[in-house]
């Protein structure tokens, strides 16, 4: 009378039939939902799927994360980690097993993000890629600044505005990239590759404006980090806000808190550079002026010393001349005359010094102290008086 399915051996379900029915009932009765528990027995299958159980004091739930879903989860969970899993409750008919198909997994607090971050950081640290000694000095006066970011993002506008304000002469070269979502890492790596092969930029800014942790996650990607570390052009990273520190920041040559700050680091203020040039020009002119003044002073000192020596020399000569003049004066007949002696001279000016020089009746001149006396020889005698010795 009763022929409801399963009500009698005749009506027995096939196993697969029943498990499929249960599966359908379960999936229909439970929409996708969040479950919290501790991770137990985590296994990563060679085909990329993750298997584990969620446990609490009174229950256990077998979980699977398909390989393609694992890519959206920053890191596999640790054993015993308290997590939140979102997924669909189902039955795995082949084993008749309850199964929770997880498509999102979050640990308490920073959990998995921090774990992934720390793991990559440790790896890059070990390779020396985050070593501060690797960081290059940025050029102080770049001619061209490359910007790798979304072409229609806020970061691009901010950077452009700051650079224009500081230094209108610098060229800005935009290299568009996807900065969030699944394709972002590959797009950023491609942009960095273009930057390197083009070779026209003196410095580059890579980054984006603020966003959720998931939005910024591409800047924690290993391939992006390696491309930044390998860049021949110095890189300034500028991801999100002040508090957001990414792996990109650790390998870049400089981490800027925001895109605007990155722009400030990238270019100098033109007016300040011009001031510096003016100061340098002033220093050159002052130095030369001082130098010329010093030379002039040295010349004046030399001239003074020369004049002094010349004057002294003239004075010494003058003194000697006077001395000689004194002696000459003493010898001069004029001096003798002044003492009352006279000298007789004939018309030719010859001194008449002996008797024989005088002819009786001839005229001669007597030189006296204040003039000349014309005289005539009356007679000549040999009884000469004694002359006084020369003065």
């Amino acid at each position: 009378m009763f022929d409801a399915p399963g009500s009698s051996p005749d009506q027995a379900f096939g196993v697969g039939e029943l498990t499929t029915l249960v599966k359908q009932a379960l999936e229909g009765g439970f929409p996708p939902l969040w479950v919290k528990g501790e991770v137990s027995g985590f296994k990563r299958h060679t085909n990329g799927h993750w298997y584990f159980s969620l446990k609490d004091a009174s229950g256990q739930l077998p979980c699977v994360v398909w390989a393609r879903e694992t890519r959206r989860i920053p890191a596999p969970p640790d054993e015993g980690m308290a997590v939140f899993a979102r997924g669909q409750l189902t039955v795995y008919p082949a084993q008749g097993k309850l199964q929770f198909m997880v498509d999102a997994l979050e640990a308490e607090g920073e959990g998995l993000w921090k774990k992934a971050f720390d793991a990559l950081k440790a790896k890059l640290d070990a390779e020396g890629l985050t070593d501060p000694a690797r960081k290059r000095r940025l050029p102080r006066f770049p001619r061209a600044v490359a910007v790798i970011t979304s072409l229609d993002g806020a970061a691009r506008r901010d950077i452009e505005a700051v650079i224009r304000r500081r230094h209108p002469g610098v060229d800005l070269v935009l290299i568009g990239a996807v900065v969030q979502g699944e394709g972002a890492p590959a797009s950023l790596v491609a942009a960095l590759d273009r930057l390197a092969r083009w070779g026209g930029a003196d410095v580059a800014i890579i980054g984006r404006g603020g966003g959720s942790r998931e939005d910024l996650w591409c800047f924690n990607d290993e391939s992006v980090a390696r491309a930044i570390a390998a860049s021949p052009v110095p890189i300034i990273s500028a991801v999100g806000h002040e508090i957001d520190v990414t792996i990109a920041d650790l390998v870049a040559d400089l981490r800027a808190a925001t895109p605007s700050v990155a722009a400030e680091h990238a270019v100098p203020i033109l007016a300040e550079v011009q001031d510096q040039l003016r100061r340098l020009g002033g220093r050159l002119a002052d130095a030369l002026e001082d130098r010329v003044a010093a030379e002039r002073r040295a010349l004046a000192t030399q001239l003074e010393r020369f004049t002094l020596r010349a004057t002294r020399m003239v004075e010494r000569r003058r003194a000697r001349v006077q001395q000689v003049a004194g002696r000459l004066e003493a010898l001069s007949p004029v001096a003798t005359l002044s003492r009352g002696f006279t000298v007789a001279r004939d018309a030719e000016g010859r001194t008449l010094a002996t008797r024989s020089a005088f002819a009786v009746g001839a005229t001669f001149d007597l030189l006296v102290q204040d003039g000349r006396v014309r005289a005539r020889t009356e007679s000549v005698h040999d009884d000469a008086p004694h002359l006084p010795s020369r003065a």
Partner: protein
Amino acid sequence: MSFEQTLARLEQIASSLDRDDLPLEEALRLFEEGIAKLREANAALGDAEGKVQRLIEGASGVFALEEES
């Protein structure tokens, strides 16, 4: 010589000129060099009206810069 090198040379010249033991002839030579460098640096700053361009990579890997509005 890059702008940075030019500036460094200028600083060096200014420091040398500040010394008294430099022969006058050398001082004059340095001064002239300094003035030339200053002129160079000012020209490098003055000639630029910066552009905003987009880097475009062509199919054959040839790069072009496209003016942005």
